[in-house]
C-alpha cells in the first residue's frame, strides 16, 4: 500500500459515515415533514370541530333565548339570542374559510347555513308575533321552528361527526407514520451501522496489513543501519592508520583506537574538543605549531603533510605523516574534516639509516679514486724526499721543496673535498655552487679520467644558495657519477650551473647535468626516484636518486630527470633547482605537499 492509497482509505473512512448520515437525515426530514403535515391536518380538523361546536352552542343559545322570551316576554331574556346572532355570522364565515378546499364539507356547511337561515326566518316571524302581542304562539309555526332547529342541529352534528371521524383517521395515519418513521430510523441506523462496520473493518484490515508491512520494513532498515554502523565501526577500528573526524567547527567527533593511542586522548575525553587540542602538532624542524586546519577545509581533495611531530597528551612525540580531506555534505558545503595520520618514527629512522648508508656508499665508491688521488702526490713527495736527501745544491733543494708543497696542497685539497662530504654545519650556510661543483669534479676527476669521460664545465659565477654543502656535494657527486656511467667509456657529460629567476617562483640556482648516454626508458621514468630502484645491477644501491631528491626537497628545491634534446648530449638531463633561501624556503613555502611543477 502506498501513501496515496492510504490517504484514499482515510478519506473514504471519514466520508462514508458522513454520506450515510446525510441520507439518514434526508429520510428523517422527509418523514418529519409528512408527520408535520398530518399534525396540521389534525389541527385543522380540531379547529373545524371546535367551530362547529361553537356554532351549535350559539344556535342553542339563540333557541334558548327565543324560548325564554316566548315564555317570559322579558326582553332581557332575548339577549343571548341577539348576542349569538352576531357571533354566529363570524363563526360561519370562519368555518366557510376553513373548509373552502373541502367541497363535501363546504356543501354541508352551506346546508347548515341555509337551515339556520330558515330557522332565522322562523325566529323572525315568532318574534314579530310576540311583539305584536300574541301572547301564545302559533303552534304550527312553533312546530315548524322546532323541526328546523332539529334539522339544523342534526346537520351540525353530522358535520361534526364527519370531522371527528376524520380526526380519528388522521390520528391513526399520524401514528402509523410515526411507527414507519421509527422503523425506518431503526432499520437505516442498523443498516448504516452494518455498512460502516463492514467497510471500516475491511479498510482497517488493509491499513493494519500495510502498517505491519511498514513496521517490518522499518525494523529491517533499522537492523541494516545497525549492521552498517557496526561494519563502519569495525572498519575504523581495524584500520592501521589513525583517524580523527571533526565537524566544521573543528571539534572532534570521532577517533579510532589508533588515533586514541597516538594522541593519548580517549574518545570520551576528546569528543567536542578543538582538534588542535587533541591533535597537537609542531613542525619537525622549527617546532612551530602546524596550523593547517583552514588550509584543509579550503582544499578540494585530500592534502598530505609530512615532517610533522605529534605531541601526545603525555608529551610523547611521534613523527607522523598525515593527510586531511574535507567532508562535504549533500550541498557540497564543508561539513568537517577527516584526518588520517600514521606514526612514521620507525620508518623515518630506517630512512635515515638508509640515507647514512647511501652517504657511505658514495664515499666508498669514491674511496678508490681518492686513494689514487692521494697516493699520487704522496708518491711525488716521497720521491722528492729521496732526491733532497742526497742533494747539496740549495737551488735544487728549493725547487724540490716547492714541488713537494705543490703536491701537498693537492692532497689537502682532495682531503678537504672528501671531508666536505661528511662535515656538515648545523645550520644552512651560503654555498657558492661553482666552487661546490668544482670540488665535486675534483673528487671525481680520477674516476672520470679512468672512464675517459669528457666533462663540459659551464659553471656560471654568482649562483649561490643557502644550504648544507656536504649534502649538496653528495647530490651532485651522485648525479655526475650517474651521468658518467650512463654515457659509458668515452662519453660526455655537461655540468651547467646558472642563476635562476623563475617567473613564478623564487630566485635561486639551476644545476643541469646532461649526459650522452641512451637516455631514460619510459618504463623506468616513474620508478627513478623510488628507493632500491637501480639499472646498474649489483653496482648500484638504488638509493642515489631517492636520497638526492630527499636532500633537494629539504633545501626547498626540485629535481627532475628528463631526456635531453641537445644533439651533443643526447642522453638524460637532470635539472636541480635550488631556491636561494634554501631550507628556509621549504619551511616558509608550505611546499611540502604542493604539486611538483615542471622546472622549466
Amino acid at each position, binding site marked *: 500500500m502506498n501513501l496515496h492509497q492510504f490517504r484514499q482509505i482515510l478519506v473514504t473512512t471519514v466520508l462514508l459515515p458522513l454520506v450515510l448520515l446525510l441520507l439518514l437525515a434526508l429520510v428523517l426530514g422527509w418523514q418529519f415533514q409528512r408527520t408535520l403535515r398530518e399534525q396540521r391536518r389534525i389541527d385543522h380538523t380540531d379547529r373545524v370541530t371546535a367551530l362547529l361546536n361553537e356554532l351549535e352552542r350559539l344556535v342553542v343559545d339563540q333557541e334558548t333565548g327565543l324560548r325564554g322570551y316566548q315564555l317570559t316576554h322579558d326582553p332581557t331574556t332575548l339577549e343571548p339570542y341577539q348576542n349569538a346572532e352576531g357571533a354566529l355570522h363570524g363563526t360561519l364565515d370562519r368555518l366557510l374559510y376553513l373548509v373552502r378546499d373541502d367541497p363535501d364539507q363546504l356543501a354541508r356547511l352551506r346546508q347548515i347555513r341555509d337551515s339556520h337561515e330558515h330557522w332565522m326566518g322562523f325566529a323572525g316571524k315568532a318574534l314579530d308575533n310576540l311583539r305584536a302581542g300574541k301572547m301564545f304562539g302559533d303552534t304550527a309555526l312553533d312546530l315548524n321552528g322546532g323541526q328546523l332547529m332539529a334539522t339544523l342541529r342534526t346537520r351540525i352534528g353530522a358535520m361534526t361527526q364527519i370531522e371527528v371521524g376524520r380526526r380519528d383517521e388522521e390520528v391513526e395515519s399520524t401514528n402509523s407514520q410515526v411507527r414507519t418513521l421509527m422503523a425506518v430510523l431503526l432499520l437505516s441506523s442498523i443498516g448504516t451501522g452494518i455498512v460502516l462496520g463492514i467497510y471500516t473493518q475491511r479498510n482497517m484490515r488493509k491499513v493494519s496489513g500495510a502498517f505491519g508491512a511498514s513496521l517490518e520494513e522499518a525494523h529491517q532498515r533499522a537492523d541494516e543501519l545497525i549492521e552498517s554502523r557496526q561494519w563502519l565501526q569495525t572498519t575504523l577500528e581495524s584500520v592501521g592508520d589513525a583517524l580523527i573526524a571533526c565537524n566544521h567547527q573543528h571539534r572532534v567527533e570521532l577517533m579510532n583506537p589508533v588515533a586514541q593511542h597516538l594522541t593519548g586522548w580517549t574518545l570520551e575525553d576528546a569528543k567536542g574538543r578543538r582538534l588542535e587540542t587533541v591533535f597537537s602538532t609542531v613542525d619537525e624542524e622549527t617546532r612551530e605549531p602546524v596550523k593547517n586546519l583552514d588550509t584543509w577545509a579550503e582544499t578540494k581533495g585530500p592534502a598530505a603533510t609530512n615532517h610533522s611531530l605529534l605531541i601526545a597528551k603525555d608529551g610523547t612525540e611521534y613523527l607522523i605523516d598525515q593527510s586531511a580531506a574535507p567532508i562535504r555534505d549533500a550541498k557540497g558545503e564543508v561539513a568537517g574534516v577527516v584526518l588520517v595520520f600514521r606514526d612514521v618514527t620507525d620508518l623515518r629512522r630506517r630512512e635515515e639509516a638508509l640515507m647514512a648508508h647511501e652517504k657511505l656508499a658514495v664515499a666508498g665508491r669514491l674511496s678508490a679514486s681518492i686513494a*689514487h688521488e692521494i697516493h699520487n702526490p704522496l*708518491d711525488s713527495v716521497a720521491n722528492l724526499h729521496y732526491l733532497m736527501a742526497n742533494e747539496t745544491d740549495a737551488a735544487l733543494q728549493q725547487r724540490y721543496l716547492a*714541488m713537494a708543497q705543490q*703536491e701537498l696542497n693537492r692532497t689537502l685539497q682532495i682531503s678537504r673535498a672528501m671531508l666536505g662530504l661528511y662535515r656538515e654545519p648545523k645550520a644552512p650556510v651560503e654555498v657558492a655552487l661553482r666552487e661546490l661543483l668544482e670540488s665535486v669534479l675534483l673528487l671525481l676527476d680520477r674516476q672520470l*679520467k*679512468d672512464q675517459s669521460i669528457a666533462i663540459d664545465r659551464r659553471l656560471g659565477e654568482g649562483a649561490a644558495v643557502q644550504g648544507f654543502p656536504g649534502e649538496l656535494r653528495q647530490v651532485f657527486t651522485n648525479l655526475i657519477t650517474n651521468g658518467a656511467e650512463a654515457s659509458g667509456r668515452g662519453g660526455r657529460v655537461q655540468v651547467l650551473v646558472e642563476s635562476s629567476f623563475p617567473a613564478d617562483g623564487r630566485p635561486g640556482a639551476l644545476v643541469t647535468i646532461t649526459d650522452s648516454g641512451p637516455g631514460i626508458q619510459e618504463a623506468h621514468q616513474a620508478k627513478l626516484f623510488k628507493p632500491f630502484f637501480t639499472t646498474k645491477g649489483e653496482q648500484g644501491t638504488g638509493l642515489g636518486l631517492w636520497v638526492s631528491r630527499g636532500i633537494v626537497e629539504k633545501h626547498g628545491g626540485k629535481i627532475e630527470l628528463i631526456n635531453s634534446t641537445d644533439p651533443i648530449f643526447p642522453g638524460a638531463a637532470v635539472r636541480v633547482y635550488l631556491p636561494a633561501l634554501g631550507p628556509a624556503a621549504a619551511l616558509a613555502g608550505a611546499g611540502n605537499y604542493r604539486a611538483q611543477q615542471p622546472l622549466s
Partner: protein
Amino acid sequence: MSRPVILCIDDEDLGLEIRKMVLEREGFSVLTAKDGVTGLSIFDTHEIDAVVVDYAMPGMDGGQVAAILRKRKPDIPILMLSAYVALPEEVMRVVSVSATKGDGAFTLVEKLKDLLQANAPEGRGGSR
C-alpha cells in the same frame, strides 16, 4: 753496460717529472710519455730496457699498455705502478713486478735494478 733506457708512462705531469729526476740520479736514461699511445710510439722508435707504467690513466690504462708491450717484446721488464692497493689478476700476470705509489723512491729503484739485473745475463728473468 751503458745507461739503461727506462720509459716512464704516467698521466701525472709533476709525478712523472719527479720520477724522471729520481731515476736519472740513479744512473738511468729516462724517456717519458703522458699516455699509453705516446708511450707505445716511443717504445717502437727507441731502444727501451724497461718500462715503468702507471695503472690508472685516462684512455688506455696501464694494464692495456703492458699487454701490448708484452706482445711486441715478450721479455721487456715492466714495472706497474699503482695507487690502488690491489691490481687485477690478469694485469699481475702480464707485468714483471708492481709497486704501490708512495712506497718511496728507494723501493722503486731497487725493484727496477733487480728487474734489469735478472734480465741482463740470461734474457728474461722471473724476479717477480
